[in-house]
């Protein structure tokens, strides 16, 4: 390595470290503020960077007053059912569209493509009216409702099934497997990485979504972490230490999951990008 190369690398590292700092700083500030008192948080002269005393009371306050356990339950039930539905129905339909011939196949696949091209806001009012008519507002079912099926998931799984060589499937069929057995026992295990990617996408989308839970579950007992934050913000307005504690409570589960399954998170992004 020449001197010039080395200098070049140092400059790249400096640039990347500065960028990393910009990425991490808001999170650090969120955590630091969440442990301060209001006076400490708003003290500018002298400037307080670290809290003098780490106030866990802020967290206890916000958990008690906003029933965070309930919010975790609502959010993760919604995520669980949406992932189950997306994985089950999308892999079934994706397989049918990729590997089977049946009348109406292209028309049905056209419906999948149509949904993917239309912005989701177009569906929201009628979806809300349906939930309302079913008397299902303020339930976990209402949160799951628009995610019962997934056009994106179907498209993604179809791409995965198409990439598997046909010989494997033919061999299974000759050995006497039915179509259902071939799908469930031979093909499904081969698209595991697709199923993981779809699960991560579905979970992350549901976790971040704000508008739907805001509309359909107005009761705080059925809010998700995201939609509860909107209410907490208008209730506490300037108590930034409490607001930051609520934010930390809302994002830590996904941060932990992300650091455990980092590799899968990255792969889910790249596979979706490259199969489209």
């Amino acid at each position, binding site marked *: 390595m020449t001197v010039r190369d080395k200098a070049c690398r140092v400059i*790249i*590292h400096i640039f*990347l470290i500065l*960028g*990393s700092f910009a*990425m991490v700083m*808001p999170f650090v500030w*969120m955590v630091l503020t969440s442990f301060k008192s209001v006076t400490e948080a*708003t003290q*500018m002269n002298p*400037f307080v960077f670290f809290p003098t005393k780490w106030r866990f009371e802020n967290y206890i306050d916000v958990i008690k007053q906003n029933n965070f356990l309930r919010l975790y339950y609502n959010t993760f039930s919604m995520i669980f059912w949406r992932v189950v539905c997306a994985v089950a*129905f999308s892999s079934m*339909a994706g*397989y*049918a*569209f990729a590997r089977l*011939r*049946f*009348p109406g*196949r292209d028309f049905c696949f056209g*419906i*999948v493509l*149509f*949904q993917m091209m239309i*912005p*989701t*806001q*177009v*569906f929201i*009012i*009628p979806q809300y*009216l349906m939930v*309302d008519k079913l008397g299902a507002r303020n339930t976990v079912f209402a949160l799951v409702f628009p995610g*019962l*099926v997934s*056009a994106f998931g179907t498209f993604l799984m179809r791409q995965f099934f198409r990439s598997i060589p046909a010989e494997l499937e033919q061999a299974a069929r000759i050995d006497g497997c039915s*179509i*259902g057995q071939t*799908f469930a026992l031979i093909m499904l295990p081969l698209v595991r990485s697709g199923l993981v990617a779809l699960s991560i996408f579905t979970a*992350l989308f549901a976790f971040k979504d*704000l*508008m739907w839970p805001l509309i359909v579950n107005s009761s705080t007992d059925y809010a998700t*972490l*995201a*939609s509860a*934050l*909107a209410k907490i913000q208008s209730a506490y307005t300037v108590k*930034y230490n409490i*607001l*930051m504690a609520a*934010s930390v409570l*809302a*994002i830590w589960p*996904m*941060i932990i999951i*992300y650091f455990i399954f980092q590799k899968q*998170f990255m792969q889910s*992004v*790249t596979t979706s*990008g490259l199969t489209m």
Partner: protein
Amino acid sequence: MTGGKKKVKINEWLWGWFLAAPTVIGLVILNIIPAIQTFYLSFFKSGDFGRGNIFVGLENYRKLINDTQVWYAVRNTLLYTLLVVPASVFLAAVIAVLLNKNIKGKSIYRSIYYMPVIATPAAVTMVWRWLYNNHYGLINYILKQLGLNPVNWIDDPNVALLSIAIISIWSTTGYNMVLILAGLQEIPAVYYEASNIDGANAITQFFRITIPLVSPTLFFVVTTSVIQCMQVFDVVYMMIDVARPSYDSTVSLVYLFYNNSFKYLNKGYGSAIVMVLLLVISIITVIQVKLQKKWVNYMG
């Protein structure tokens, strides 16, 4: 056709229908019929409690054309997209190119840059609101220490949209970076080796090899980012409530749709607004696909 063959064929049909049925039926109920209903609703004025919709023909659309807020929303949404997409894609591309040089700690950098992507926008916006705070915010504090004038990030109508765009750039760069990095890794090393022998320098290589070969990925990144930006809601909703002085200069089409449909409960007018969104997105997508032929290279 023999009876056996026919039986096999019908068997395949039945399985096909059976496997596709949940998704297809679900999409028809949840998406196809609602899309038609929204279009239909846009010709009605919603009565109280959603009862007694009154047919008003094109009245909602006439109102919409004369509604300055709709025009503000179209302008804000387009301006926001123009601020976010180029900055986010450019930064993502620069970081991806640097990380692609087998730099030490590559995976650590990658995970750090991706972190904002997984955080809930509602929480992220709350933190940024705090950073942007006029009196106690960290950003204005730093500006003051540097001897610069503090900025009214949230309430100044000329600045607020930029403040929102900065949050979005911060939270989407990592996602685009991962995609572009994957695209870069697909480029065979032989191209670079061959051009090294021909004496090409790093800059020529970047413009003659890297950019053309990664252009399909860039196209994907740009089109998906544009569509997402056009639907911006969370950040604006969490940052600017209706009473703020900067509302008119930040309200997005989807935010306006939300307010009209679910706050003022006029779902007919809300439906008309969402039709405008659909129209704008369609026009932009057509333009992008047309322009694609000029710069995207699919030789790979």
